[in-house]
């Protein structure tokens, strides 16, 4: 078990103009479950591979514990890539399936046995150890695969979109299993996904990347409640946060036919317009506010999501709001929304950075 440090680590592919990972500074605590998330091409898999030793590090360092592993080959880093290739061998028992790689490493039989027993206990597979994989359900087979990584007792687990080739139902089951397993084992885990919901439900902390640059790292709650920039604000949360470019007015921001009061210091020097971010659940129907025309109402029982459009200058912006499901507005209706007090995020219209007092 160990902490992991990316110390201004960069990866630039030969001939490329921009780095795939740009001076990444990330400190992962011992035992932490850290998720790297971002859209396709953001550098999350590259960053993971740098940690694994499968990608050269052009500048900066990678440390596992206090050890600089930047030049160390993958098999000497004491890491385990989970789910990379997890074949289940039909003629071998579950115990043999879990432990055979240790045999190759020349580990004594009794030590292998001990490790397999320990892993089986954590995975609830003890009663299946002498069975063949054929007798196991899909979820149990997944756990045998995890067992193969666990018995190696690595300092760090690395997982790169491990659920991507599973069917939807198994994906959700396995997600929970992985998270609870990691809590029990307490092994530092770095997990890559493009799915922000997955990131938010699994991670102790989540690191959002975009175009090779770290946007923000924090607990799911921190990212949700206090995104550092427009990208994180729009990426985290589903349905996405409404991000509206609105004019600054005296005492606040012009929100349709009302002025949303904002601390003067916050918008001082930010220009004539700012980006106002409000999550769908923080918009409420009211007499005043932004004027919108309802286009689609998604009724989900207790809640309903209203998708409406709002005119802003020449543009038409889409607004998503969550309302009480019992009496949602009608399609085609004109309604006003205003933000709930204290749930307004403000960002600079050019840099996208969060504005604070």
């Amino acid at each position, binding site marked *: 078990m160990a902490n992991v440090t990316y110390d201004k680590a960069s990866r630039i592919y030969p001939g490329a103009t921009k780095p795939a990972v740009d001076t990444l500074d990330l400190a992962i605590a011992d035992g932490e479950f850290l998720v790297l998330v971002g859209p396709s091409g953001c550098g999350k898999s590259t960053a993971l591979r740098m940690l694994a030793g*499968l990608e050269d590090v052009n500048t900066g360092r990678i440390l596992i514990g206090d050890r600089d592993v930047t030049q160390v080959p993958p*098999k000497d880093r004491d890491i385990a890539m989970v789910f990379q290739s*997890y074949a289940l061998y039909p003629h071998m028992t579950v115990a043999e399936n879990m432990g055979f790689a240790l045999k190759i490493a020349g580990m004594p039989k009794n030590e292998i046995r001990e490790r397999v027993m320990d892993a089986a206990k954590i995975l609830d597979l003890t009663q299946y150890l002498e069975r063949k994989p054929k007798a196991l359900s899909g979820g149990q087979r997944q756990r045998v695969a995890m067992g193969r990584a666990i018995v190696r007792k690595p300092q760090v687990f690395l997982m790169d979109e491990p659920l991507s080739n599973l069917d939807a139902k198994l994906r959700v089951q396995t997600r929970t299993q992985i998270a609870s397993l990691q809590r029990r084992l307490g092994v530092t885990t770095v997990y890559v996904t493009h799915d922000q919901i997955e990131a938010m439900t699994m991670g102790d902390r989540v690191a959002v990347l975009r175009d090779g640059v770290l946007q923000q790292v924090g607990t799911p709650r921190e990212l949700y409640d206090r995104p550092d920039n427009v990208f994180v604000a729009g990426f985290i949360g589903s349905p996405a946060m409404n991000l509206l470019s609105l004019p600054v007015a005296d005492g606040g921001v012009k929100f349709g036919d009302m002025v949303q009061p904002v601390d003067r210091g916050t918008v001082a020097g930010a220009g004539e317009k700012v980006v106002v971010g409000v999550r769908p659940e923080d918009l409420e129907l009211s007499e005043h506010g932004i004027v919108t025309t309802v286009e689609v109402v998604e009724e989900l029982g207790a809640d309903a999501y209203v998708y409406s459009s709002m005119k802003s200058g020449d543009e038409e912006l889409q607004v998503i709001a969550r309302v009480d499901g019992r009496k949602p507005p009608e399609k085609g209706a004109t309604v006003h929304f205003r933000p709930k007090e204290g749930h307004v995020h403000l960002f600079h219209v050019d840099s996208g950075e969060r504005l604070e007092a």
Partner: protein
Amino acid sequence: MPLQITTAAPEPALLDLPWSQPLAEWPADRLAALPRGLSRHVVRFVRMSPHVLALKEIEESLARREYRLLRLLRRLGLPVVEPVGVVTGRTAGLGQPPLDPVLVTRHLQFSLPYRALFSRSLRTDTATRLVDALAVLLVRLHLAGFFWGDVSLSNTLFRRDAGAFSAYLVDAETGDLHDTLSDGQRDHDLDVAQTNIAGELMDLAAGGLLDETLDPIDLSEVIVSRYRSLWAELTGPESFEPGERWRVAARIRRLNDLGFDVGELTISTDIEGTTIQIEPKVVDAAHHSRRLLRLTGLDAGENQARRLLNDLDEYRAERGLQGEDEAIVAHAWVSGCFEPVIRAVPRELRAKLEPAEIYHEVLEHRWYLSEQRGRDVGLGEAVADYVRGVLVHKPDEASVVGVDTEEMPVIAEGIVEG
């Protein structure tokens, strides 16, 4: 959503397949044989004359990615299965949840999954030759910048190649193509290869299918040693004194013998000019295959090609044709030696082995008969005896798909695979 087939080789008969059913439920009468390889996904084989197609049910982005990758690898001339296309837009019907797309590849004729080779009693050095072939494949893939990610016997098909084997990549799901691979990437692939091979052989042993004299762990180490020595031979720098310049030609010849051509070689000296260093920079495989193709138009595996070229050389020497144009002699050899042997195989026995392999075996058989009869046996006599006594007993290998192993797709709770 309408069914959509993305393919570069339109095969109209594909439309007739029961796409609205989950692959695992396709009726047996549509299938070539129930396929069994160690697979995470559902895989089925379907006969689409004259080919056999392999179908893999897999998530859409992965299917498309693998299809593109296989096409790219083939364009690079690497020994991989031929991708046919991706079938998307599958549903069981209105209101039903969508079915995963299917990646379609063409089953390699005369190729064998490793388990097929182990299911009959064979010479014990077969296992080593299989691992050897896989090592060569891995070197070739790495030279091209392809990181495999899941190197294993199960992800490979083998073709007989003059008594040895040549290996073909079947599954590129975990693969990635780069300009060049780092040492870390190559080491990782090799590590995975060793682990997977050990596991696969241990599994055969546990199933009583592995000869007792073979040790899975020892065999798994063969891939590491063979890969490393081949890699060193192909890419390692070599230093020598001036006056030993013959070493350059010797190095190139060694590479040719291994089946590789040197595309580019850097030669440098140290500052004082006291030592010379050579380092192959670009190497292309299939040296003999290409030469055979160029001279005779025959398409054969590397070892087969070497064998046939040797026979061609002997033919030239025996008839004193050394001074003649290479291509003319080659043509005479094809019509005078090669074709008569292949024609002598009755049509009903042609599915047993590839022509080049048959010719190789006839040459072997001729040598054996000559020994036995204490005189030089001619090709005609050899092939007649071979067809009667040897070929007729061999199994058909044109399309071997079903062998006894297990399919264990990893799917959601509640469904236990039988």
